[in-house]
């Protein structure tokens, strides 16, 4: 019998970019799923309030992530806060979906303390228009988190009272958590203080990698003697 006739022996070509996939069953009943994230009724209320502005609801590990239209995020937050008691904003963060359309994402992690509920909202931001309406008017706690998002991804929040960088100095010209930003940083982008008391600013954070040997702070600085 020929090998090709036997379906078991037929060679199977693995796709080139093989990615190990978890079996679906393992994900269905997640041992760490929490009761607080079971918020199907709240998602329904949000859908009826916002209508078409709710683009998608993803459930993973029992957590509901509701993606809403970018221009309705403030309305969504205000509805959740005022009608459904989500008074507490835990976290805001960005994410770079490099190579996809609508490249950036901003997520909002909201909690209803009294009823013990947690929900996550999401908006997508395209590279052509990197602005999202701020939610600081609804949740003052969003202030620093939005600044962090601006600092790390360059997503600016329209109407934010204080749109400064959070961690990096204002003199820094890049957005480090974007996927194209190199892990080792951009040499010269962030000058460091002088290495010796009489030295100049250190422009390169990794001088040894570029063939330089800056003086250590404990080393005597050689002073050119005047021979005249």
């Amino acid at each position, binding site marked *: 019998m020929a090998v090709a006739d036997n379906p078991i022996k037929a060679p199977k070509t693995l796709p080139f970019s093989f*990615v*190990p*996939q*978890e079996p679906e069953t*393992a*994900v269905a*009943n*997640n*041992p*760490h*799923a*929490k*009761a607080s*994230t079971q918020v199907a009724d709240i998602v329904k209320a949000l859908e009826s309030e916002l209508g078409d502005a709710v683009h998608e609801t993803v459930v*993973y*590990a029992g*957590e509901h992530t509701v993606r809403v239209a970018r221009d309705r995020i403030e309305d969504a937050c205000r509805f959740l806060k005022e009608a459904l008691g989500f*008074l*507490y*904003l*835990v*976290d805001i*963060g960005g*994410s770079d979906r490099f190579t996809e359309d609508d490249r950036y994402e901003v*997520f909002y*992690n909201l*909690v209803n*303390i009294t009823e*013990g509920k*947690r929900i*996550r909202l999401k908006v997508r931001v395209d590279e052509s228009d990197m602005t999202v309406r701020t939610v600081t008017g609804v*949740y*003052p*706690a969003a*202030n*620093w*988190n939005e600044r962090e998002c601006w600092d*790390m991804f360059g997503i600016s929040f329209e109407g934010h009272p204080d749109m*400064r*960088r*959070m*961690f*990096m*100095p*204002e*003199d820094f010209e890049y957005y*480090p*958590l974007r996927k194209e930003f190199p*892990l080792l940083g951009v*040499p*010269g982008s962030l*000058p460091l203080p002088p290495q010796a008391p009489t030295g*100049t*600013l250190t*422009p*390169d954070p990794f*001088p040894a990698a*570029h*063939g*330089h040997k800056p003086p250590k702070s404990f080393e005597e600085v050689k002073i050119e003697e005047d021979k005249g």
Partner: protein
Amino acid sequence: MSSISQTDWSETLKFWPRHNEALYRRLESKHSWLEHSGDGAPVDPLENQMVLNIGPQHPATHGVLRCVVQLDGETIQKCVLDIGYLHRGVEKIAENKTYQEFMPYTDRMDYLSPYSNNVAWCLAVEKLAAIEVPERAQWIRMMMSELARISSHLLWMGVGLMDAGAVSVFLWAFQFREDIYTIFDEVTGARLTVSHARIGGVATDLNDTGINLITDFVQRLPAAITGWENLLNRNRIWIDRNVGIGVMTGEEVVARGMTGPNLRGSGVAYDIRHFEPYLKYNEVDFNIPIRTEGDALARYFVRLDEMKESIKIIRQCLEKLKTVKGPVRTDDAKRAYPNKDEVYYSMEGLIHDFMYTDTGVAPPKGAAVYHAIEAPKGELGFYLESDGTGNPWRAKMNSPSFTNLQGLEEMMVGAHMGDMVILIGTVDPVLGEADK
């Protein structure tokens, strides 16, 4: 040769000029600003107003926190906090590491309670990849996290008291912290950077010496706490320094997003251990201390009571560990490191160990979860996104110190300059975690 072409740095010799400019603009300090611009506008004739930079290098700022305050006499009119001096970009680093490889980095975030951070990270990854943790490992994690809580609160107390001028409590607290470090050394092999939790369990089981050390510690600590309470709870100086300082109402702390004892000191009952119990917190008996006053003193009482509750939890864990036996790590080579015996004495074990180090756990593509624990300073959560490979696509850390510091800015307004040090202490920030 360097790739830097710029050689003349005289223009940029002023260190971070644009940064400082933005900071002062935020302060809207007419005094410093007008004088600076020199447009002839009248400056404060009595010279009551003043802008003061405290930090980043200042012992009372608990790290590298920079507070730029605008003073009117002794009252703080406005405060702008400048953080980021310890920014190491751990989120960026996480994207370039496997899930297990990143775990030791969490030690360096809140370096006062590294064990809690390890647990927080591992739990988030386990949720992302749906990995079960053996029961014994859960009890061990819980017990060690509570020890980390005590250690963190002890430091807060010692340093807080020293900020107020009392050095002896600092030394007493550090005696017990030293005991906790000895326990960590025995159990995990490291005093500070413990790195003991593994995805799917913990690295090693407890031995008898470790159990005895912990038992001895929880026997001695309550008496010491009673002694401190006798000294402090009716201490005129300590009470006067703290009562009515930095008052935040329940609505204010929720609006500002503060967490942990700062939230519970204002009467908001939000503790992740009750809110969404992780590990075995739903099986132990403990209380969540809550105060309603919302001042620095209330937060002191909350933290002191939390230490007592932690002892209660540790006692129950010790009791449970006598009966709950079994493995301390998931026996599944695709999800957790294999046992060391297996690695050293079998070929499969070695291959699995290698594979796990190289690729590790690979959660499904597009999965995203958020898992939070109640760290000593509040809600510590990790938001993880997976792209189906062994490296996280995005790891966002929600650190309690960061959110608490945001509330500190508000708390400072209207306070006296002399209380500033107490206020920083009462919020209990760790800049390693706030700066990421």
